[in-house]
């Protein structure tokens, strides 16, 4: 077996998430690719929790669909994650024998195998402690499915070594007991995970990170030395990572008194000549709008990350959604355009964050990096990233000659004017949120206001022709197309591959640059398209509607959109693609997706 998806749920204190992390760490060390997503109940501490882990011998783009292996330490808790942990007739279901499920619990599904393992009993008997249940499970998985016993043991030693000899010994006993039980009670026909590497092969070590950490690391790499923020789920890990790492690079992390102040301090740092970032999620984004407008008119580079969650207002803090696109594009008073970029995976978060800084500095503009809770909080095992292939852009500073008669907001051919910073003799100017002339002096002239709007909006025009604005894959001339962004892009990518196996030739466009809309790239892509879907996680189908504003869409391109916290499975997109292909064969333009208006 080359691809294995495991799901596990239990009560607070069962160490479910820590078992998931042990597994993905061992997977990374063993050369497997993987995605780990964690899910929690609403409790602050304790309460039910679950993970799903997909391990594979080749790169993966989604957390997987139906579970191959399900583990319930506690039946009630498992059921609470029904949507996240789907099972079917091929699933091997393992539960702790002390909590047998009621016969009605299966609701029409008959797993391939149902195994009652005495997980708690083993933990109590050999480790003397219920808390070692998760480690017993690791031992079971190691033997039943061939998951890296050596790697898991190394991981356990790292994790528990710090907690003292007694704790480590207890967990080693629990792990070995799990393995022994599995050897003594083999599962007939259980597929084992293929080795990730050929014998003797020693590739470069893999990276293991979540999207938020990756975003923070990329910011440091891009030269960010100031972060202002405020804790908010699901973006807080960005501030936490920077709070540990940014100081080492001479940077400053300010946990501000509120979201506005966090963004404001970053605007101040940018005015002072530093690359600066703020990060937040939904409700915080509403508050940061004020500073984004200021950065636009004062023409100050700023990266503002929004790790989207369900909204509006408090909405669903722990669930991912893609419904902040309209906000990112439109939330402003006055005429402004600001670039909006979206990463599609943990690995892609590195490149897209670096690009966000480059665009901010090059065009002297705020840039919104629109991540989502799924990418921000899931852990991925990815190939090492060669940072040498990234170039870093610095803002255009005035030359000594330009400083002799410096004009901060000079009208130039590109619309980008050299930007000074305090300390530069001759470079002093008034930055302001009030409309200003070339020198920065306040003005109430309509003519100047029009020219300044044209400058600030016009300077971003080259962005629409940026080669990295979209990524296209699949059959270049296919009449059937998918468009997807953010975390859904990975699902679409996988759907495209599965559709190919069903004989459906389609292609996929994934925008990194959501706004301004790269109209040329869409026009080229859509030239051959007669039918297709814009797939996204929002009730309204926000990208679809945005595209309708700016792009001439074929009639057969519809919206496949749903609210957050309801992930797409690749298979359901495939079914839609198959329907589209059949309809096209019957030579009529199909009606697709949800009705618009």
């Amino acid at each position, binding site marked *: 077996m080359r691809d294995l998806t495991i799901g596990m749920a239990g009560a607070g204190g069962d160490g479910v998430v820590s078992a998931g992390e042990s597994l993905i760490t061992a997977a990374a060390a063993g050369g497997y690719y993987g995605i780990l997503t964690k899910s929690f109940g609403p409790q602050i501490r304790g309460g039910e929790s679950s993970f799903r882990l997909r391990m594979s011998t080749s790169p993966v783009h989604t957390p997987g669909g139906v579970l191959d292996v399900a583990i319930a330490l506690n039946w009630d808790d498992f059921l609470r994650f029904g949507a996240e942990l789907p099972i079917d007739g091929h699933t091997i279901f393992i539960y702790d024998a002390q909590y047998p499920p009621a016969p009605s619990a299966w609701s029409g599904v008959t797993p391939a195998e149902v195994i009652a393992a005495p997980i708690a009993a083993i933990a109590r008997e050999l480790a003397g402690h219920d808390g070692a249940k998760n480690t017993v499970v690791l031992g079971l998985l190691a033997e039943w499915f061939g998951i890296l016993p050596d790697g898991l043991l190394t991981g356990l030693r790292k994790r528990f070594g710090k907690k003292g000899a007694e704790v480590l010994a207890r967990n080693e006993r629990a792990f070995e007991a799990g393995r022994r039980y599995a050897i003594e009670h083999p599962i007939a026909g259980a597929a084992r995970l293929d080795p990730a590497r050929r014998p003797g092969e020693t590739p470069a070590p893999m990276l293991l990170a979540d999207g938020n950490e990756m975003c923070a690391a990329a910011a440091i790499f891009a030269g960010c030395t100031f972060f202002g923020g405020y804790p908010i789920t699901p973006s807080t890990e960005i501030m936490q990572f920077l709070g540990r790492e940014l100081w080492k690079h001479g940077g400053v992390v300010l946990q501000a008194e509120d979201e506005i*102040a966090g963004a404001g301090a970053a605007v*101040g740092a940018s005015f*002072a000549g530093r690359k*600066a970032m703020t990060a937040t999620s939904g409700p915080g984004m509403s508050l940061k709008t004020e500073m984004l407008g200021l950065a636009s008119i*004062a023409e100050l580079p700023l990266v503002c990350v929004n790790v989207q969650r369900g909204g509006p207002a408090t909405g669903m803090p722990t669930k991912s959604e893609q419904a902040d696109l309209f906000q990112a594009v439109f939330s402003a008073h006055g005429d402004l355009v600001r670039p909006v970029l979206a990463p599609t995976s943990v690995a892609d978060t590195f490149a897209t964050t670096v690009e966000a800084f480059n665009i901010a500095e090059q065009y002297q503009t705020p840039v919104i990096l629109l991540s989502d809770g799924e990418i921000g909080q899931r852990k991925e095992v990815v190939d*090492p990233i060669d940072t040498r292939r990234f170039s870093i852009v610095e803002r255009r500073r005035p030359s000594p000659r330009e400083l002799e008669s410096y004009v901060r907001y000079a009208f130039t051919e590109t619309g980008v004017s050299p930007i000074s910073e305090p300390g530069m003799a*001759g470079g002093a100017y008034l930055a302001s949120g009030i409309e200003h002339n070339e020198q920065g002096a*306040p003005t109430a002239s309509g003519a100047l206001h029009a020219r300044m709007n044209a400058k600030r909006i016009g300077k971003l025009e080259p962005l629409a022709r940026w080669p990295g604005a979209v990524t296209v894959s699949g059959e270049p001339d296919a009449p059937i197309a998918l468009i997807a962004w953010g975390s859904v892009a990975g699902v679409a990518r996988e759907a495209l591959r599965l559709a190919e196996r069903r004989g459906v030739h389609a292609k996929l466009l994934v925008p990194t640059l959501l706004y301004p809309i790269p109209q040329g790239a869409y026009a080229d892509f859509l030239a051959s398209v007669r039918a297709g879907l814009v797939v996204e996680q929002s009730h309204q189908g926000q990208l679809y509607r945005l595209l309708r504003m700016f792009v001439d869409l074929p009639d057969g391109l519809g919206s496949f959109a749903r609210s957050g916290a309801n992930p797409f499975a690749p298979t359901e997109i495939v079914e839609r693609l198959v329907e589209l292909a059949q309809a096209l064969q019957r030579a009529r333009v199909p009606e697709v997706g949800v009705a618009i208006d």
Partner: protein
Amino acid sequence: MSVQVKDFKSDLKPIWCPGCGDFGVLQAMYRALSAVGRPPHEIAFVSGIGCSSRIPGYTTAYGFNTVHGRALPIAQGIKLSRPDLLVVAAGGDGDGFSIGGGHVPHAIRRNPDITYIVMDNHIYGLTKGQLSPTSSRGLATASSVYGSLEDPVNPLLYVLAYGARFVAQSTPADMPGLAAVIEEAIRFPGFAFVNVQSPCITYGQPEAQLKQHKAEMVPVASVGHNPANRLAAMALAQEYGKVLYTGVLYRDPDPGPTFEQAVAERHRAQAGSTSRAQVLDVFTVR
């Protein structure tokens, strides 16, 4: 190289009404800045929104006329990332104690070396005469035609209660005194607050203009005040709105480290242990 008052004057003509107290604050700023002696390009002068917040543009410093109420967060971002700069923040009483009031305690507790000057005129002038957070109870304005139903904020007590280490009050009616407290505030190593009673000639109370200030002001030295005593300062601050005390109400005799000194300490402990190119190493699994 010494700097003169003229070095700080910009070409912009103030939009203020003739007789506005803010002219005096601007003059005092020129004097204080030239006395301190840093060249204009090493100064960042940040303001919010309101009549008084136009002030940075009338100097030759690097100015930032931001948005309403946010001068302090932006000034802190500047100071933290560029501790070498002299950073001054300014604004009106609405900017500092209404829309931006939530930022003041946090600037105080962080203690960056920033001077914060509030031009307190007890009215919203730019929007043509509405209640401000320091308007007195009963005041009839464009937005309170039957009189205000609310007590005013007491800016002096507010900042003293939050632990401000330098608190002064003055008026343009006492130009030498105003220039002196601003200079002292700038020289103070830490967050320094100066409340300037800067009357609004157009919408303010006719009986609270510069002429009355000159007649009524009470220098704190004249009542034997010891500015090293926070509780004594709070006792004087209680009289806000009744007695116009001028001078330094409180000056912490042991001001402690500034925010940026603490940051520098952190950098000495942490910086240089890794390079930007190695930033992904923390994710490597071996």
